[in-house]
């Protein structure tokens, strides 16, 4: 056959008709659709029987409900974390950190699955078996103890009140080391303030029943206490057409809490305690404080009202104080009178915006204000929590002989992880040979991250017990894999500021990754290997057994574990018992006086040596002292404060990918740049503009960021988002922004001895970027 033009056309037309008549085209289109939509890397989650189990997230205190699916191939797995509506504090609500917990649990790129030993010179990690790893740590500790150097081992933990924290404390104490410190929290500041003035370490605010709330610089809606519980109370304050309660926020920035408050009084940074004192003075001047308390508290000696009154009248001029705090006096007076008049008013103190544990005298001032309002033990006021019915893990252990690193000259022992690190780094009075990091990711969370980084670098042997390859694990010689809270046993105690005490418990709900063990189990196994007094101090097979012993008074352990919480039924209303030396509420604290003049010392000298500028007479009273950040000199003219957010961090857990995803570009700008806020006028003075790359530098560290101008930021300040800038935690979290805690300068509260870092003096310069 000749291939002429006609044949070609016939063939072509025939082919076109033939192809169209065949199922080729629909088949090809169908295949294309399938091919473009069924990539093998698009996951197909396995179905199965659904079950729910209650638990409590120890990092947030949220009562949660895990949704579990039992698949035929993949086995039991968690697919969601929802709220537990029965939980008395969180009542079904969750936080971003709770709802996205699975992203950390199941990410095998960030989880530690086996004990790992690092070669310090090459950085290469080698897998060890559990017996090898435990022998290594036990051998190291036993060696120190044998040479009388047990005190040269230190341990840092996340939560001292958890059973794991208790085990860590007993382990170190039995070993003979006084050097144990934990993540600092406002619970400790509150306990000291409560003890000094009322002899009550466990105080809470009955927020749910209050109808006039004044919050002194604490991020009430951005991380105070158990955040969900505060929100539940907040929801009750709102209403239509009128709100049920009035919220007044005192702080320097138009934060979420300030914006949601009915009134925002912008004060100078760090002057919140001063405002509380000014309110006390106004209430006394106007005679609107609760007169009944004068006789009820037996307040007629110098320790009671008269001493405080004369201090206020002498030292706190209303107009001067208001201008010092940067608040208009008429506004303050009006607010104070409304506060005094309200039937269920409460003044609230708590963690600072930078996540610090608060200043002792500020807390005492706020408690004094509450006392003047006469709301102690009343609905909507300050109430004492019923102590949790928890048993001790064993008898008292002998005190370690060498002085603790963090206690230098203080009248009472406190937990100051920063002082411990600094003393160890300086080698005064001695350095460290071994450091155990048990949760808390101190190398990232600090509080002064660069100091913790140096400590981990300089200590010859560092052990990290952690579920993730986090910054602390990245510095450790030996990394021991611990369980995520959905995989293992653990507990948490009453959140800060809660009106009722509440114990939360979590148990293994899904199989743990590879070889991870509960943090407590690792410590107990270590104690067994050390033998002798250490093993005798911790005679438990595992953490579950230790928890069962500790919670004996809460009833059947199995039932408790299934319910996941124990809570005090209702706040303890009624006359508050004051366990002070005088048996009364002491505005001028005798406990503090006794401590300062212990052993016949001159109280005035002791107070001044600690850094209380006002001297002895005022040192026992709630008073105000200028924050250290003010005195940083001309090189650091601005004041830096953090912006806390439940979207970036809460607790010691890292941000999750979903939390990073929902950050607005006023926090994290394209591409992954940290954004800091400044008032437009301040920026103009510094010749800075919106979008400039800036270097924020303090005397302790620095960070670079993009600048945004925000009218709600107090002039003279720079505001930095908290909790970003991880180096690890996978490609969805690592390298996003910079770590606020690498720029802060941590100081110690003169009286409580707690580390504080609410404000840091900084300079801000434009840089190329």
């Amino acid at each position, binding site marked *: 056959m000749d291939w002429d033009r006609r044949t070609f056309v016939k063939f072509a037309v025939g082919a076109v008709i033939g192809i169209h008549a065949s199922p080729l085209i629909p088949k090809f289109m169908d295949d294309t659709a399938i091919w473009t939509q069924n990539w093998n890397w698009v996951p197909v989650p396995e179905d199965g029987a659904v079950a729910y189990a209650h638990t409590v997230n120890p990092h947030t205190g949220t009562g949660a409900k895990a949704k579990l699916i039992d698949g035929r191939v993949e086995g039991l797995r968690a697919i969601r974390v929802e*709220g537990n509506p029965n939980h008395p504090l969180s009542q079904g609500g969750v936080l971003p950190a709770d709802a996205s917990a699975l992203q950390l649990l199941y990410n095998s790129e960030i989880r530690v699955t086996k004990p790992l030993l690092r070669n310090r010179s090459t950085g290469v990690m080698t897998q060890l078996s559990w017996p090898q790893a435990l022998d290594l740590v036990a051998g190291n500790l036993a060696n120190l103890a044998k040479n009388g150097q047990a005190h040269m081992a230190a341990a840092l933990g996340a939560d001292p009140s958890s059973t794991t924290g208790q085990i860590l404390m007993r382990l170190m104490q039995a070993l003979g080391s006084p050097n144990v410190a934990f993540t600092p929290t406002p619970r400790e500041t509150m306990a000291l303030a409560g003890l000094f003035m009322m002899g009550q370490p466990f105080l809470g605010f009955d927020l749910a029943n209050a109808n006039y709330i004044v919050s002194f610089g604490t991020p009430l809606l951005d991380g105070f206490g158990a955040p969900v519980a505060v929100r539940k109370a907040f929801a009750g304050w709102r209403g239509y057409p009128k709100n049920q309660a009035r919220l007044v926020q005192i702080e320097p920035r138009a934060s979420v809490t300030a914006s949601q408050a009915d009134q925002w009084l912008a004060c100078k940074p760090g002057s919140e305690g001063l405002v509380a004192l000014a309110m006390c003075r106004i209430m006394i001047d106007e005679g609107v404080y609760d007169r009944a308390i004068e006789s009820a508290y037996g307040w007629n000696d110098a320790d009671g009202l008269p001493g405080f009154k004369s201090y206020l009248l002498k030292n706190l001029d209303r107009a001067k104080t208001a201008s010092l705090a940067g608040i208009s006096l008429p506004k303050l007076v009006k607010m104070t009178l409304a506060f005094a008049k309200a039937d269920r008013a409460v003044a609230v103190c708590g963690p600072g915006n930078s996540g610090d544990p608060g200043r002792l005298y500020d807390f005492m001032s706020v408690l004094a204000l509450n006392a003047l309002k006469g709301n102690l033990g009343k609905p909507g006021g300050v109430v004492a929590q019923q102590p949790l019915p928890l048993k001790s893990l064993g008898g008292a252990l002998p005190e370690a002989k060498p002085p603790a690193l963090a206690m230098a000259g203080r009248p009472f022992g406190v937990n100051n992880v920063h002082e411990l690190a600094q003393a160890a780094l300086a080698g005064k009075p001695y350095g460290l040979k071994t450091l155990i990091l048990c949760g808390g990711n101190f190398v990232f969370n600090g509080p002064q991250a660069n100091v913790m980084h140096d400590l981990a670098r300089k200590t010859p042997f560092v052990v990290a017990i952690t579920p993730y390859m986090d910054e602390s694990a990245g510095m450790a010689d030996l990394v021991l894999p611990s369980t995520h809270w959905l995989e293992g046993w653990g507990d948490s105690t009453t959140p800060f500021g809660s009106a009722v005490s509440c114990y939360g418990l979590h148990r293994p709900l899904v199989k743990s990754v590879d070889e991870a063990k509960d943090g407590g189990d690792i410590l107990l196994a270590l104690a067994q290997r050390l033998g002798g007094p250490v093993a005798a101090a911790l005679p438990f097979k595992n953490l579950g057994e230790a928890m069962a012993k500790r919670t004996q008074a809460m009833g059947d352990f199995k039932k408790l574990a299934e319910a996941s919480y124990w809570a005090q039924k209702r706040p303890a209303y009624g006359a508050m018992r004051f366990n002070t030396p005088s048996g009364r509420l002491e505005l001028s604290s005798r406990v503090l006086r006794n401590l300062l003049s212990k052993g016949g010392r001159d109280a005035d000298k002791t107070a001044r040596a600690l850094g209380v500028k006002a001297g002895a007479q005022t040192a026992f009273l709630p008073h105000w002292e200028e924050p250290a950040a003010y005195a940083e000199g001309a090189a650091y003219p601005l004041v830096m404060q953090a912006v806390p957010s439940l979207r970036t961090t809460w607790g010691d857990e890292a941000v999750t990918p979903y939390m990073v995803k929902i950050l607005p570009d006023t926090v994290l700008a394209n591409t992954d740049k940290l954004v800091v806020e400044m008032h437009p006028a301040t920026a103009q003075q510094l010749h800075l503009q919106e979008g400039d790359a800036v270097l924020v530098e303090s005397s302790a560290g620095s960070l670079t960021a993009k600048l945004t101008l925000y009218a709600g930021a107090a002039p003279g300040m720079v505001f930095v988002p908290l909790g970003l800038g991880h180096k690890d935690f996978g490609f969805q979290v690592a390298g996003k922004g910079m770590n606020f805690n690498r720029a802060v300068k941590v100081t110690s509260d003169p009286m409580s001895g707690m580390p504080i870092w609410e404000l840091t003096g900084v300079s801000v310069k434009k840089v190329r970027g």
Partner: protein
Amino acid sequence: MWRKNQVRYGMVIDVDKCTGCGACAVACMSENNVGVLPDETDKIRSITWLRVYQIDNGKPFPDTEVAFFPRPCMHCQGGTSGAPGQAFFQEDTDPQEAHTPCVSVCPAIATDYDDATGIVSQIPTRCIGCRYCVAACPYHARYFNWYDVPWPQGTPRGLSPFVSPRMRGVVEKCTFCYARLQRAKNKAFVGGGKVGEMDYQTACTEACPSGAITFGQLQNPAHKVHKLIQSEFAFRLLEKLGTNPKVYYMSKRKWVRMMADNHLSQAKATQAAASGGHK
């Protein structure tokens, strides 16, 4: 067009209770298997079915104030926009007026308006990725999968089997947690009852720690939302477009309502409502 035997699901978000914590957004993502890209600061590519927007009143220090607007899909079906103070729900009978912006442009019927529930569906496997709907949506509630989700190793274990993970090249959006409605319907069918108010609640509603979100049937007097939308403080976003959204907001703060395009005076609003809201 709504008939008596049909229901209309909708939502009321109390802006005065919202603290912008993002729990709703995260709960939504975990319920609906939304992925996370390496760079989520690129907001044009970032997929958030429910995005929390922040606004401020623009006043100088110390009178500055911020507020948050969680924005799911509005599940529009055009109709008479409710006047402020009498916000009620009414769908237009004229099919020309009663369209849903995204549905009317979809060439593949990958998105549709469900007359029985008032929910605007999204079927990713039908989507051809033309993105007309993304352009048509006045609320930016629709997102295109520009990339395959790079699930980190192990994380697919935490995915829910009730919502299919999407592939590259399709559009996705809030579906009012439709899988939850299906489950509630199944449960009601087996139990022989009806789907009650609390049987079907979206993930964001459940998660919100301050209870700012209320969800239910807008036309059912027994449901909380029905009462809430009649409040004088209730309003919707871009009401003047006449899209007739089923997501309402509430605020006592006037500046918040003003920003939400509800700044017409009472007289003008009534006039606008009477003329179909297209003024």
